[in-house]
């Protein structure tokens, strides 16, 4: 599915506004998400909002 299809999904499907708002990540951002050494940045899956905090409380 292409980026354009976020706004034009298959006839019986709908995409959330969050997907429509998503923008293409730069090569450097993808690199952070893909495992380069410096991952102390606020962005990415290991950034400020870890995708699965699982605080268990």
């Amino acid at each position, binding site marked *: *599915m*292409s*980026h354009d*299809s*976020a*706004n034009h999904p298959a006839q019986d499907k*709908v*995409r*959330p*506004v*969050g*997907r*429509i*708002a*998503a*923008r*293409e*990540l*730069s090569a*450097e*951002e*993808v690199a952070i*998400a*893909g*495992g380069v*050494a*410096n*991952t*102390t*940045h*606020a*962005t*990415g*899956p*290991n*950034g*400020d*909002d*870890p*995708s*699965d*905090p*699982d*605080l*268990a*409380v």
Partner: protein
Amino acid sequence: MSKQPLILSARPYDVHAAAAMWGLRQSGLAPSWPSSLVDGSVPPVSLYCDDSDGEGSGGGAGWKASGWLDDGAIGSIWFRRAHTPDVFPRAIDADVPFLRTEWARFLRNVYALGDAFSDRLWVNRPASANRAENKLAQLEAARRCRLRFPATLVSHDPDQIRRFVARHGRVVYKPFVPHTWEDGATGKRFGTFARLVEPTMLADDESLSLCPGIYQVYVEKKYDLRIVAIGDRFFTVRLASRSGAAFVDWRAYTFAPELHVEVCALPDRYRGKLESLLRELGLVFGCIDVAVDVDGDAHFLEVNQAGQFLFLEELAPPLPLLRAMCAMLACGRTDYSLEAAADVSYPTYAASEAHRAWWEGVRGQLEADNRSGAWLSIE
């Protein structure tokens, strides 16, 4: 032996945890960062309590903990990104759900007891950390502390959303947690950042109602502040565009040459309000995001109780953030002295052989997790 820090972070590739381990060792301490609570890398924990006289008089010595919660051995716990154990190498599959549930319930009890074990420092206390992960709880605390913040609507009601946008004009949409989609054909990735609402985003009722989103009035800002509160110390940097144009979400420009970062002072009056906010939320550490408008007024956006901060040492040196965290963990108190830790810095750690060797051992796990995490969807 003096009391030592314990770091609870489930991801083996957590650079912040690794840097703190290095910094603490450089400071002469012997911190622990267990890879798991069940694999023998830390002593098993026991908790004991009685009523002493057996009469229910309210007496007794209270809870006593041993193992990785030993009162006499652990002086501080960095509850950074803990995770319920879910891997039990020698267990049979049929037992794993039971084991996961028992561990989850046990840890929930441990964290609920919180200060009952001792007066050790938690960074942050689990119950407070859990509550502060909720952006709406943050805004409610900010309201009580008389912090200024943008009008916010959280909704999946298309009519309410459109009315909010019509009323306020420039409105930012943001999700509760960032997510990434990967185009299976091209490999291109698309991520959610805070973004100004555009007409195409409001066109479809079903798209808006599929799940709630956060809609917040855009602050016509001059610059952003990232304020890192480490105990009683506040470290503030100003993030602005070199051209003078504001960023909707500065995180999207972390790598861009137009991002200008500099250390700045935090006005005492605003610092007092942020101290109230942290007290209200029960936090001793947090990365606070604030937008400053063209009139110089500050607008609270959010506080990340387990936020990222070491990148600021590279963007705006010299900021002794790693040293401050190590000193607080070493002292086990929020009114620590920086002298309690060696003169360590993140850039020094990042360039060290210790970092290189550690990274080689964990990068494979990061790459594997990044391919399978809940944060990523393949389209």
